[in-house]
């Protein structure tokens, strides 16, 4: 069992000088496993999922539409993949709101990358 010098600190992200969160936050996981880590290039890789495209679409999907529009991103409005199957079910609102707080900065970084025409 590995040590954790921060184990005594309270969980959460506010209310104290130092708080501690574990590695279960989806936004933190996505930021790492989709964008970082060792990349294996070449034809040897079996393509089940286009990870680059998934990374971009997923972040825009769960980020604030208004925030993305503010940055000039609105291509999903005419993307058939994203317009079909959309539901207005309020039960997802709380979950999406939480993800929004985590991913706004990531969306902004990706917006700049898209605008400059660069991708990782």
């Amino acid at each position, binding site marked *: 069992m590995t040590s954790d010098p921060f184990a005594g600190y309270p969980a959460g992200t506010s209310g104290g000088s130092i708080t501690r*969160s574990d590695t279960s936050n989806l936004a933190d996981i996505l930021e790492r*496993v989709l964008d970082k880590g060792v990349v*294996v290039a070449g034809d040897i890789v079996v393509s089940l999922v286009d990870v680059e495209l998934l990374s971009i679409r997923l972040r825009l999907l769960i980020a604030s539409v208004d925030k993305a529009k503010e940055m000039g991103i609105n291509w999903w409005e005419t993307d058939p993949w994203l317009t079909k199957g959309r539901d207005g079910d309020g039960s997802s609102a709380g979950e999406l709101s939480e993800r929004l707080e985590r991913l706004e900065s990531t969306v902004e970084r990706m917006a700049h990358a898209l605008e400059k025409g660069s991708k990782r």
Partner: protein
Amino acid sequence: MACEPGPCPSDRMHARYLYAIVPARTASAPGAPGLGDVDPHVEVLTEASLSAVVGPVPASLVEAASALDEEHRPGRERTLGAVEAAVRDHERVVERVLERATSVLPIRFGTVLPSSEAARELLGRNEEELGSCLEALRGRREWGLKLYWDTDSAEESARTLTSSPGTTDPDADRPGHRFFAAKRAELTRADRRQDVYFGMASALEEALQSVGIVQVQMQVHAGVGASPNACVLDATVLVAQDDEERFLGAIESVLRGRTGLSASISGPWPPYSFVGGLPLAAQ
């Protein structure tokens, strides 16, 4: 760029999903659990001085690929659910490897190789480079650090920065001038707030360097300030386990004397952010 179709079921049987690369015969400490119990479906393939942690293609990944398929379009919630399950499965395995290995190279999500032999060839072809990277990461873990600053406190800190003495403006009573003067004052406050945020980031960097922690990736969100308790700095830090107490001390030193500033620490993470942009040659 459309998603390519996945392998047919018979090919999928031989395919191997790659989670991480570790030194061969790795163990975190005598008596520590080995890699064999990371997951019932995970196996370890060894080639020379390296081992690859692989498994069959996860069902969650297949479902995520299907959900993203243009022809099916199951809907946003199901797609999100499928992708979330797949990425959590990936991370769970890599974290368990981190608990058991002296050093870990986490692989990016979604890496599928056609066979175990292909995985071994990958290790053999890149042995030197991978070995160097593993050695550099030995005994180190990644931590996430977010700093939040109460907006009123940040504004107060900004106000204490040097400001020019008040001068009498002969145009002050002109309506148009009042509007632009207010706008100029707002911009000045934003500039000062930005200075405060970057000053804080510099203080953090210096504090970490003073305890020997130099591998830091940092992003300052200087444009924020609208929300009451905004995240003003996002950082990932690579810390040797022996230095983690000093890491904590460095954070405390930055918080000290800055009213309204708080920190949230996440981790330990596998060192995704510090693999040095290591693309592996597969052929």
